[in-house]
C-alpha cells in the first residue's frame, strides 16, 4: 500500500517536473524576458492579448554582446530610445489584437 502510494507520488512529481517547465517556456514570447498577462487560448475576438511580465534584474538578454537583435537601448537620447531604454524594472509584453487598427497599424479617426 505504502509502496504503491510512494510510486504514485514519484510519478506525480516527475510529471510536474516535466509539465511545469513546459508551460512556463511556452508562455514566453520572443523577448524571452518579459512577463505576460496570463496566456489566453484562444485569443478572444477583438484583442485581450497575452501580456507577459519580466522577471526583473539581469534577465534582459538583449543587453549582452552576442544576444542578437537588441530589444532595448543602452544609451537613450531620443523619445523612442528613452521609452525603450534598457531597464531592470518589471516589464510586460502585451500585443493585443485590435480589429479597428488600419492595415498599416495606424489608428482610424475618432468617431
Amino acid at each position, binding site marked *: 500500500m505504502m509502496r504503491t502510494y510512494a510510486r504514485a507520488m514519484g510519478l506525480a512529481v516527475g510529471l510536474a517536473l516535466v509539465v511545469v517547465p513546459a508551460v512556463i517556456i511556452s508562455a514566453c514570447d520572443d523577448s524571452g524576458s518579459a512577463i505576460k498577462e496570463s496566456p489566453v487560448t484562444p485569443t478572444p475576438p477583438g484583442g485581450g492579448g497575452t501580456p507577459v511580465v519580466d522577471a526583473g534584474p539581469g534577465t534582459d538578454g538583449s543587453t549582452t554582446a552576442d544576444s542578437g537583435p537588441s530589444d532595448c537601448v543602452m544609451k537613450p537620447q531620443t523619445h523612442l530610445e528613452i521609452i525603450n531604454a534598457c531597464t531592470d*524594472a*518589471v*516589464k510586460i509584453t*502585451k500585443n*493585443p489584437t485590435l480589429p479597428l487598427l488600419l492595415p498599416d497599424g495606424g489608428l482610424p479617426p475618432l468617431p
Partner: protein
Amino acid sequence: MRSTLRAVVVASAILCLSRSAHAAVPACASLGAQPIVYIENGDTQEPLVKRLGQKLLASASPLRLVYKNRRTCDLALDLYSGAPMMNDAIAVKYIPAPDDPNAVGWTPSMPTPACTVDSAGVATDLGIGATYLSSCPSLPPMPATLAQQVGPVQSYGFIVPKGSAQIAITAQEGYFAFGFPQGTGQATPWLDQALRITRGPTASTALTCAAAIGVPASKLKGVVPTGNTSTEVLNAVANSTSFDATIGLMGTEVYDANRDKVKLLAFKGYGQRYAYYPDFSATNFDKKNVRDGHYLPWAPTPYITRVDGTGKATNASVQRILDLVVAAKAEADVSGIDEIIASGLVPECAMGVERAFDGADLALYAPPAPCACYFEAKVAQGATKCTVCTGTDDTPCGGGKCRRGYCEVR
C-alpha cells in the same frame, strides 16, 4: 424611575452631541491667530496639501491651509479671473490643530473638517493644478499679475477592480476603449461604456490620461461620476462586480493609498515595446519608470499665484510654500521634499526626463541639484545603492556631490 432618568440623560447627551456636531462648521477666518493661505487644488494634490498643512500648522511659524478641491482648468480660470473661493457644493476644508474639537486625533490620512468662507467669498491665494495648463483649451492668457511655477511630478494611470485579470493596457487599447462609444471600439474587455469611469475634461486626471492614449479629454467615452472626483472613480471601480470590463482613470498617489481596493495597469505607450508600471514593479513605490521615462502618463503640477515685479509671490506665506514645494527646500521643522515624497509625488530634482506639454515626447533631463538618491532612500519601501555622505563633504562621492546625505551625480 432610575432607568427613566438614565434614558433622559443619555437622550440629552445625544441631542447635545448632535447639536454641537451641526453647529461645528466654523468660519475659516476664525480658526485661529495664524495667517491663512487659501488654496484651490486638484484633488490629486490633496494628500500633499494635508501633509504639508499639518507640518506648517505645527511649525515654529504656524500657517493654516484652507483649501478646496477643484479641477485643474477650473482652478486656473478662478485664479486668472479673480473669481473668489465660495461656499458651494464643493466643501471648503481646513487643516485642523491637534486640539480641534471637530477633528480630534486628525492625521492626513483622515478626512479634513469643513469651514465656511465669508458669504462674498474669499480671494484664492494659491492654485495647485496637476497637469500642464496648456491642456486647458478654454483658458485665456495668464494675467501679468500672476505667475506659474512648476511643482512636483504627478503620475496617472488606469485602474481596474482587484478581481480583474488584466495587468496592462496599451495606448492603442486605450484609444479604442475610451475614444469609441458603447460596443464599437472592440478593445476587449473594455467594451461597456458605462463601465469606463472617467473624469470631466477640465480635470488633470482626464487630460493627462487622454493625452497618453491620443484622445482629446473632451472626447473620452465613459461615465463621469456625479461629483467628478477621484474618490468616486475609486469607489466605482473598487465596487464593480464586472471585473474585467471595468476600468477607471486615477492619479497614482490616490492609487498608492488604496492599493488594497483596486489594481493599476501597466501602461505601454505608442512606439514602446513593453508596458511598465509607474514603479519598478507592481509592489514598489519608487516611481522609477516615471523618473526614467518608461511610464508615460505624468505631468508636473503648476503652482499659480500673484507675484510682484521680482517674480516673488506677493503673499509671503505663499512664497514660503513655493520655497518648500517647488524648490523642495526644508525648514527646521518642515521638509518640503519629504512631504512631496510621502505624498506619492516626484520632486523635479529626482526626475531624469522632461516634456513640454501633455503627451509630448520625452527628453532627457539633468536636474541642477539632483535628489534621485535621496528620493530612492526616502520613498516607502525605499532603498538606494548610492554612497552615504555627510554634510557638504564630497570626498566619498568620486566626482559627485554630497546632497542630503547621499552622493548624487552632481
